[in-house]
């Protein structure tokens, strides 16, 4: 199975990484951690000043590379043997995720989401919603407030009946 996980450095995407790492995977399951740099419009705002816009984009790229790298190394350290790739791409976030899912032939796209209360609960998040609509494969939405599961090995350690 090929699993593509999109990260943006937020708590919910970190939670998605942790949730994935807590789950069991086959040895040949592959992972790709991606983050997307959204280009700054050249028509308005800071984009008018190409030097400023370019500098900001460079900073964004460096930031994306940093947190996708951190997420990938965290995932690799928790998963162990599975192959973990990192990629930073530029484009519209949802479109880039779906395009990469298609070209890499991903079986599952994983996204983090805030599990908000109240009226904000109605909003899934524009990126998650867009990916759900356009994704060529299955999509998992990990909620920020969900409890993480212990790995089987850790669970067994906590169960006296199993360790006997």
């Amino acid at each position, binding site marked *: 199975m090929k699993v593509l996980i999109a990260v943006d450095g937020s708590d919910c995407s970190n939670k998605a990484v942790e949730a994935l790492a807590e789950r*069991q995977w086959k040895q040949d*399951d592959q992972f790709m951690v991606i983050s997307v740099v959204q280009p700054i419009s050249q028509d308005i705002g800071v984009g008018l000043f190409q030097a400023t816009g370019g500098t900001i984009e460079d900073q964004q790229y460096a930031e994306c590379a940093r947190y996708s790298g951190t997420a990938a190394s965290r995932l690799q350290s928790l998963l162990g043997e599975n192959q973990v790739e990192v990629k930073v791409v530029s484009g519209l976030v949802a479109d880039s995720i779906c395009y990469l899912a298609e070209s890499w032939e991903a079986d599952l796209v994983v996204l983090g*989401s805030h*599990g908000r209360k109240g009226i904000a*609960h109605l909003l899934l998040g524009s990126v998650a919603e867009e990916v*759900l609509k356009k994704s*060529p494969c299955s999509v*998992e939405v990990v909620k920020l*407030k*969900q409890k993480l599961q212990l790995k089987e090995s850790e669970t067994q350690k906590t169960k006296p009946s199993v360790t006997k």
Partner: protein
Amino acid sequence: MKILVPVESEKIASAQIDFIINHKWPDDLAFHLIYAIEPIFSGGSDDSDVDLRNQMSVWNKKIGLKVLGDVAHQLRQAFQNADILETVDTDHASEVILDIAEDWKADLIVIGAHGRKPSARVHISSVSNAVLCYADCAVIVVRPAKTIMHVQSSSDVQNSSALL
């Protein structure tokens, strides 16, 4: 790990089953299969169609039990030690799913998606959307694999030409 599997039809369920079977899960696995029957709206005018509605309700429950039975059978073959619960309930699907997810303390909901064709992908069903927004646990929206899409679309063409 507790996995809630809302089942809508055999076609969509086959993609859910494929996904679940191809994934590695912990040993302490439990499935709760749900088939929700949407209540039949009477219009509130008279009770002349009570018999018809009762007959439809019984018929729908039979279909639900059969679909769940088939899914449960396939899951039992793949996961012999897993606990499998089956629930057929008459209420709005999203409410049934969210209520059971909360009461049963599901860790994951694996829900099917309608979008087999690109044109249908633009719409996420209202049930999937509600579950994604309100569920406290992770939600996987399973799309049929591309090969299945191709086979189905070609058979659809054959069926339509046979009708002509």
